[in-house]
C-alpha cells in the first residue's frame, strides 16, 4: 500500500467532471506540484463521481476536507502555491452558496452534502476506484470474509430479509424474498445478474456507483452468489458507459489477483466468477426478462411472468437479477447488521436511496438520502432551490415510468408507497426538477416519445397505444387540441396500463396521467385558449420585439438563422412571424440590459402592437413616451 502523504487531492473524474476537463486539471496539478517540489508530500488521486456535478470539475483536499469547485487549469498555479505550499486555502475557488458572500470551505458544511447519508456511496470521492487496496483500507471485503467464515447461505438470505432491503431498480421488490426463492430452487447452475442497464433519461446513479466504487458491487455480487448458490455472475452494463465498463474490468482483474473472485475465494471452497456483458442501446433491456434474452443473444423482448427469473431465467436456470445499487447495499448490511440498516428509513422502505438531482435546480448532482426525507428538503436544502428565483412547478421522479409531483405534495416523504400514491414511482432514482418555464404537455410528450421509440413492439397496447397517445399530445401542443382530448388521453392511458405485458408498457402512461391529474388546467389552456402558460409549445408562442425597449442595435438581425427579423440601425426591429422558426436565438443575444424580446402566447399575441413599417427608435419614443408618463 502506498505510504501516507501529507495532503491528498481527490479530483473527481466522474463523467460530468471528465467532460469538464478533470484530467487536464490533474495533469496541471501534477506539473505544478513538481514545479514547487511538493511531489513527495502531495498526491493526486483520480476518484469516481463526487456527486456535486454542478460544480465540476472539482476536488476535495484531504485531510482538511476542503472543497474546491469549478476548477480551471489557469487557477492551478495559484492554488498550489497558496494552499499547498503556504498553507492558505484559496477562497475564490471554494463553494459560495447562492446569494451569500462568504464561501464555505469545509465539505461537511456545504448544505448539499450535509443532509445526505452515505451508505452505498460511502467511498465516493475518497478512494481511487482503480485501486483495490483503497477499498480494502476502507473495510472493503470484510463482509465477504464474515459471510464465508461464519454464515450459512440461509443466514445470509435471512439477514437480508430482516434488513428490509428492497430492490433499487424501480419496483421495490424485497431483495431477500427474491434470493429466498432462488436459493430454494433445486435446478442448477444458478445465475446472478447485476443490472446496470440504466436507461432512464436524467438518471445516472448506477453508473456513478460503478465508476466510484466498483468493488462494492463485486463484493455484493459475491455475497449474493453465495446466498443463492450461484457460481456465475454477469454484470450487464450499458455500452454508453465506457468509463464504468473500464473501471469494472480493472476491479474484476484486481479482485481475481487478490483471491477475492474466482476459484476458492479466501481459501474456502466457494467459487464465483463475474463476466461483463454490454447492452447496445435498447431501453427495454432494463426489464429483467428482456435483459436475460439480450444476454442469451436472443431478441430482447420481454416475456410473460411467471415463471419468474428466480425460478426460470437465464438459459432456463434460476436467476437472480438485482440492481447495482441494491447489490452495493449488501456488504454494508452484512458488516453492520440488519438491525442497524432497518433503523434507517420508514416503516416499509428501509435504508437510503440515491437520486440524481437534475433539471432546473441550483445544485445539480448525485445525492444519497435516507428514505422518508421530504421532497422539500431535497429540493430546497440539498438542491439549493431553483435558479434565478423562478417558481417551483413539479418534480419528476421515476423516469419515463414515473410521474410529476406538484408543489402541493412537496412535504410528502420519499418512499416507495408515498410516491406511488402520488401517481409516480421510485424508479431507479432520476429526480428532475421543473420550474415555471417547463410545460407539462411538452414534458408528457417528451416521455411518450421516448417510450414510443423504445417500445419493443411486442404488445399492441404499448406499441400502438403509445403512438396514439403521442398523436393526441402532439395535437394539443400544436394548438389543435379538441374538446374531449383530455378524457380520451385518460381512457387510453388506462387501457395501455392494463393491457401491456411488461413494466415498460404498464408504466408508460404515468407521465400523462400524473400531469393530467395535477395540471389539468394547463392542458385546458392549450386546448381551449390555445395558450401555453410556460411559453414552450412552439406553435402557440410568438417572439415579439417590444418597441418601447428596442434600441435598434442589429444584434438579433445578425443572429437570426432564418432572416426573419427586418430593421435598420437605430430603427425598431420587427419579426416576420411567417419566417420565424422560433429558435429563440434572438432572445439569447439581446443584451440583458435591454431585453426587448418577449415570448408571448394566447390572447397576448393579438393584443400586442403590430408594427408593419420600419420606424426609428427616436420617432417611436416621441410618439409614445409622453403617453406613458
Amino acid at each position, binding site marked *: 500500500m502506498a505510504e501516507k502523504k501529507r495532503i491528498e487531492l481527490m479530483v473527481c473524474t466522474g*463523467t*460530468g467532471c*471528465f*467532460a*469538464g476537463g478533470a484530467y487536464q486539471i490533474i495533469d496541471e496539478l501534477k506539473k505544478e506540484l513538481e514545479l514547487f517540489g511538493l511531489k513527495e508530500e502531495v498526491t493526486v488521486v483520480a476518484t469516481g463521481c463526487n456527486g456535486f*456535478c*454542478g460544480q*465540476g470539475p472539482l476536488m476535495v483536499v484531504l485531510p482538511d476536507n476542503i472543497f474546491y469547485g469549478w476548477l480551471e487549469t489557469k487557477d492551478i498555479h495559484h492554488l498550489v502555491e497558496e494552499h499547498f505550499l503556504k498553507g492558505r486555502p484559496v477562497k475564490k475557488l471554494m463553494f459560495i452558496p447562492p446569494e451569500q458572500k462568504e464561501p464555505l470551505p469545509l465539505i461537511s458544511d456545504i448544505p448539499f452534502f450535509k443532509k445526505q447519508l452515505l451508505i452505498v456511496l460511502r467511498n465516493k470521492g475518497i478512494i481511487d476506484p482503480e485501486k483495490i487496496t483503497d477499498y480494502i483500507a476502507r473495510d472493503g471485503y470484510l463482509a465477504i470474509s464474515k459471510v464465508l467464515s461464519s454464515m450459512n447461505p440461509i443466514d445470509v438470505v435471512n439477514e437480508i430479509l430482516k434488513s428490509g432491503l428492497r430492490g433499487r431498480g424501480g419496483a421495490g421488490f424485497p431483495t431477500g424474498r427474491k434470493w429466498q426463492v432462488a436459493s430454494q430452487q433445486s435446478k442448477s447452475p444458478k445465475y446472478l445478474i447485476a443490472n446496470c442497464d440504466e*436507461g*432512464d*433519461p*436524467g*438518471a*445516472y446513479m448506477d*453508473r456513478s456507483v460503478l465508476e466510484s466504487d466498483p468493488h462494492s458491487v463485486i463484493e455484493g455480487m459475491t455475497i449474493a452468489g453465495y446466498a443463492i448458490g450461484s457460481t456465475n455472475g454477469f454484470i450487464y452494463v450499458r*455500452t*454508453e*458507459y465506457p468509463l464504468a465498463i473500464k473501471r469494472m474490468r480493472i476491479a474484476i482483474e484486481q479482485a481475481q489477483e487478490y483471491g477475492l473472485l474466482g476459484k476458492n475465494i479466501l481459501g474456502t471452497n466457494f467459487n464465483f466468477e463475474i463476466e461483463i*456483458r*454490454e*447492452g*447496445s*442501446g*435498447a*431501453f427495454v433491456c432494463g426489464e429483467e426478462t428482456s435483459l436475460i434474452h*439480450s*444476454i*442469451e*443473444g*436472443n*431478441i*430482447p423482448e420481454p416475456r410473460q411472468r411467471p415463471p419468474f427469473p428466480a425460478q426460470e431465467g437465464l*438459459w432456463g436456470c434460476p436467476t437472480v437479477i438485482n440492481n447495482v445499487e441494491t447489490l452495493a447495499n449488501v456488504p454494508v448490511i452484512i458488516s453492520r447488521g440488519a438491525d442497524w440498516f432497518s433503523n434507517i428509513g420508514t416503516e416499509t422502505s428501509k435504508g437510503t436511496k440515491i437520486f*440524481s438531482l*437534475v*433539471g*432546473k435546480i441550483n445544485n*445539480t*448532482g448525485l445525492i444519497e438520502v435516507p428514505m422518508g426525507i421530504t421532497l422539500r428538503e431535497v429540493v430546497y436544502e440539498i438542491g439549493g432551490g431553483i435558479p434565478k428565483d423562478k417558481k417551483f412547478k413539479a418534480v*419528476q421522479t421515476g*423516469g419515463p415510468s414515473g410521474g410529476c409531483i406538484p408543489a402541493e405534495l412537496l412535504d410528502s416523504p420519499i418512499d416507495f408507497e408515498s410516491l406511488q400514491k402520488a401517481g409516480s414511482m421510485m424508479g431507479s432514482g*432520476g429526480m*428532475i426538477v*421543473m420550474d415555471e418555464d*417547463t410545460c407539462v404537455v411538452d*414534458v408528457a410528450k*417528451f*416521455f411518450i416519445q*421516448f417510450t414510443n421509440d423504445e417500445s*419493443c413492439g411486442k404488445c399492441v397496447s404499448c406499441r400502438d397505444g403509445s403512438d396514439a397517445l403521442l398523436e393526441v399530445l402532439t395535437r394539443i401542443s400544436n394548438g389543435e387540441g379538441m374538446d374531449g382530448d383530455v378524457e380520451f388521453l385518460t381512457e387510453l392511458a388506462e387501457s395501455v396500463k392494463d393491457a401491456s405485458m411488461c413494466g415498460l408498457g404498464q408504466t408508460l402512461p404515468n407521465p400523462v396521467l400524473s400531469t393530467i391529474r395535477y395540471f389539468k388546467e394547463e392542458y385546458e389552456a392549450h386546448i381551449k385558449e390555445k395558450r401555453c402558460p410556460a411559453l414552450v409549445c412552439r406553435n402557440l408562442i410568438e417572439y415579439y420585439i417590444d418597441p418601447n425597449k428596442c434600441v435598434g442595435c442589429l444584434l438579433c438581425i445578425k*443572429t437570426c*438563422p432564418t432572416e426573419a427579423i427586418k430593421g435598420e440601425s437605430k430603427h425598431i426591429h420587427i419579426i416576420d412571424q411567417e419566417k420565424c*422558426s422560433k*429558435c*429563440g*436565438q434572438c432572445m*439569447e*443575444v439581446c443584451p440583458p440590459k435591454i431585453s426587448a424580446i418577449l415570448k408571448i402566447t394566447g390572447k397576448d399575441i393579438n393584443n400586442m402592437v403590430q408594427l408593419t413599417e420600419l420606424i426609428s427608435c427616436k420617432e417611436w419614443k416621441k410618439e409614445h413616451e409622453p403617453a406613458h408618463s
Partner: protein
Amino acid sequence: MFENITNGKIGSALVVGGGIGGMQAALDLAESGIKVYLVDNKPSIGGVMAQLDKTFPTNDCAMCTMAPRLVEIGRHKDIEKITYSEIESIIGKPGNFKVQLKKKPRYVDEKKCTGCGACVSNCPTRNSVQLIEKEKVALQPQYVEKVTSIINKHRNRKGPLMPILQEVNAAYNYFPENVLKYISQEIDYPLSHITRVATFYSSFSLKPIGKYTLNVCMGTACYVRGSGILLEQFSEKLNVKVGETTEDHLYTLKAVRCIGCCGLAPVATIGESVYGKLQAKDISGIIEKKKNEAVEYAKVNN
C-alpha cells in the same frame, strides 16, 4: 368490364390461387351461376391457411373456417379444380380471354386415387434427409482477419451473438451484409435472427455511418434546457436529417438518450469529446473545428 357480354350469365370465370380467398371467390361465383375454373400451382387447394392453427385477430381455428369450404368446393358441380398447374399465358381482354395452362405430371391417376396414403409410407426414398446445400459465404479480404478472430474469440462461450456483434460494430461502425451472413454461417444462427437482433439495438446500424457520430443528448435535463432546438440547428447546419450521414461521411447526426452529464445540460458529444452547456450560437464553430481537425489529420496521414 364485361362489355362483350350482353345477356347476363354466360361464359365462365377463372380463379387463380386456391387459398382461402380463392376458394371463397370460387364459391361465390359458382353460387351465382357461373362456371368456375379454380387453378392452383400446389398439388392441393387450401393455401397458407391450411398450415395455420389459429388466425389473427380473433384466434379462430383455421381448419374450422376452411374445412366447410373445402368440402363445398369438392362437391360443387360448377367448380372445376385444376391443381398442380401453372398459367402459361392469357390472351384476350377482360371478359373474353383464353388461358393456357401447364399441368405438371403427378404420376398418379387422379380418377382412381382414393388418397389412402399407402404409397407415401411405402416410398423407399421418403426417409432420407434431403437438404439443399447452402452456398458458402466468403468474406471480402478486408474483413477476413478481424472478423474471424472476433468470431473465434467468442464462439465457445454461452450466448456468443451479442459480444460478436458488439466487437464487429466497434471495428466497422456498421454491419456489412456479407459479414452478417458469415457470422450466421460460422456460429450457426439463422440470418433472420441475427438481422432482427442487429436492427433492434440503437447503437447498431446496417448502413455505413460517418467518421464522427454527433450525438445530441435528448435526456430530460438536456431537453428542458433546450437540446431539442440544438438538434434542429445541427440538422440544419449539416444539412442532414437526424440519423443520416453527411455527404462527406464525416458526421452522422443522432439524438441519443441521456448520457449522464445532466449537470452540464444541454450536452452534445462528437466522438469522445463532450460539449456541455451548449448554446445554439456555438454550433457552427464546433462543426467547423472538427472538420478542420479531420482535414489536418488526413494531411498528416497522407
